[in-house]
């Protein structure tokens, strides 16, 4: 059910705040991916950037809760705008 549109795939670091985003892929190793998947970050899931901090640290909204994400992590999540 992957949504097909022409928006470019970017890492979460560079995605616009406030827009609805969809996760395209995650990387960073099995353990890490499984861990963030349990928190609701996995391919085809929607999320939204609530606030952007310096160097890629973010607060995102996913599955009804807000998650704080460190700088190294946002690079490992690829998203696109829907």
């Amino acid at each position, binding site marked *: 059910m992957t949504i097909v549109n022409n928006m470019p795939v970017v890492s979460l670091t560079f995605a616009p705040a406030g827009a609805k985003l969809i996760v395209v892929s995650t990387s960073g190793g099995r353990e890490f991916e499984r861990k963030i998947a349990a928190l609701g970050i996995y*391919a085809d899931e929607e999320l939204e950037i609530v606030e952007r901090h310096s160097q890629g640290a973010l607060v995102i909204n996913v599955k009804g809760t807000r*998650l704080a994400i460190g700088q190294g992590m946002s690079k490992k999540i690829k998203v696109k705008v829907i």
Partner: protein
Amino acid sequence: MEKKYKIVLAGNPNSGKTSVFNALTGARQHVGNYPGVTVEEIIGSFKVGDCKINVTDLPGTYSLTANSPEELIARNVIITEKPEVVVNVVDASNLERNLFLTVQFMELGVPMILVLNMIDNARDKGIEINIDRLEKLFGTRVVCTVGNKSEGINELKKVIGEVVLEKEKHTSKKVNYSDELTIPIQGVSKLLVENNLVPEGYKADWLAIKLLEKDKEIIELIESLESGKKVLEQANVFIAKLEDDVDEPSEIVVTEHRYGFISGACREVVNTSLQKRRDVSEAIDSIVTHRIFGIPLFLGLMYVVFYLTFTIGNPFMEWIQYGFDWLGGFVSSWWPAGSESDLKSLLVDGIIAGVGGVLVFLPNITFLFLAIAILEGTGYMARVAFIMDRLMNKIGLHGKSFIPMLIGFGCSVPAIMGTRTLNLKRDRMTTMLVVPLMSCGARIPIYALIIPAFFSKQLEAPVMFSIYLIGIIVAILCAKLLRSTLFKGENEPFVMELPPYRIPTFKSIGIHMWGRTVVYLQKAGTLLLAASVIFWILGNYPKKDKLTRDYAGEIVKVEQSKVPQDEKKAKIQSIRNEKKAELLSYTCTGWVGHAIEPALKPMGFDWKIGTALIGAFPAKELFVSQMGIVFALGDIDQENPVSLREELPKHYNGLQAYCIMLFCLLSAPCIATFAVTKRESNSWFWALFQLLGLTVLAYLVTTIVYQVGLLFMTV
């Protein structure tokens, strides 16, 4: 006869699980550690009818996969201890995320009760939940509660009472995944059954799901069984086919299907009528986690915490001090005035003074525990960890390491106990080992003695500041060193839920604070008692038989002389003090002080400082009173050590004085810190490593400072 049942409480972090636990069990709680790990095991109990129900509060987790020690413990308790029922607490206002764990209990096929906690919050948000429908879908009883107001708790107790009696009836339903996932699960499950690879207590389907999730623990478990490796290879064929079909790793497919099942269930049972509006938490967060204001705001708040710790704590400290003074006086009065008894000295100078010297800090420690409990209870801690993560990352630590390190400025004990919030052992150990470098409250009396004695008024503040700063810099360097040698590994990526802000209840804060204080007293107390006795023996034996002067005779002479009464008293006291000093220099402590003098020389220390440093091992601030004894000045008032302040500059210069402070800052932590490090690291090795490592470090740094300082002084 009373029947006993065992149940567990499980749920996500921030689901209000602990408030439900507190409401169920009240103050009847026992806090321990799971063997081998620093995860708290909290047990309580309550009664329903003639049944006694023992409840274990499992650590809060999002999942039951081997992602963290908490998750492993949660599932192993359920598998091996077979509780009668799993009471799954979920945040009613956020079902979708919380049910992720619930689904995993359903996979385990255990008897379960679903508790929709904070139901008031959900109603405020316009979320309506169809309870009957939910019960049918999941095959479990559902109870609505408001944990922190104790609403629905009696109903929950009643339901627990019913369920434990007929648990077969309440075993949760099997989750129906689509064929895509069901076919490989059943395939692997059949393989395991046919090859006799389902150990006691496990279910084949569940093991199959875990193999699809590539769960390390379960893979190792199967591998360890006969022909397990062969069967795993066959199982991998199923997994490979699944991954090929959907072009995704199988563990992610499992997660997606779980969330898929949940979102289907939520569509059926949840009805949201209100539009989402920007809530209070978000508004607060826009200030608290602000990229510019966030850090200053936090530092300001911590300033208030420390200010209150010491101002509110001080009167209590004085009471405790009075209490121990009174006790010392009372015990002394059992012996006739002026008599010298070893037993009296052991009780009064050894045990009462030693234990008292550390226990005076109890109000401060308790207050810091209170502050931590409040900051955690409101949800602010998660924000602090987030805003500090970038800074901490630079020294190879996690954002959550910042709080323990900061608490270390108050007292190392609560700081080290605070390191258990860190998930990775390498982060936790590194933080634990460097925490004592944060200059704690017990070092302040040392600085207060030395700085005014050696430095001019204008220099006082900068000197004090430089000491604190050196501690921080050394801690950063040590953390970097440890993370690149003993505790190598990548930085843990930072991801943390920012729960809505809540006002914690008095009860929950009280239970939290009290529990930790008791642990501190138990652990530090026993070791402290032993240390006080040992250091008393070292500081009193062997006794010198032939003294260089006839002190008793001198006292008699003074008493017979015709000087005013006041002068007489002072003279007698000074003779007694001189005798004490002579005796001390002959004891083990004094002997060691003398023996290591050559080794202390490079730091500019003489045997007197060495002796006082050894005597100050139980608690840092004892250094002041030990110096008092060494210099024959008798008992020193720590608050106002005037006589010692006048005496010291006659023997040492400013550089030496600075080196004393530096050494006290960096060297071996106090006995209480040692005890807590042992407990939290679960190893004597790391406690000793910290003790010796810091002492060697202090020696090196102080030597360098002294030697370099000497060069400048001779120029």
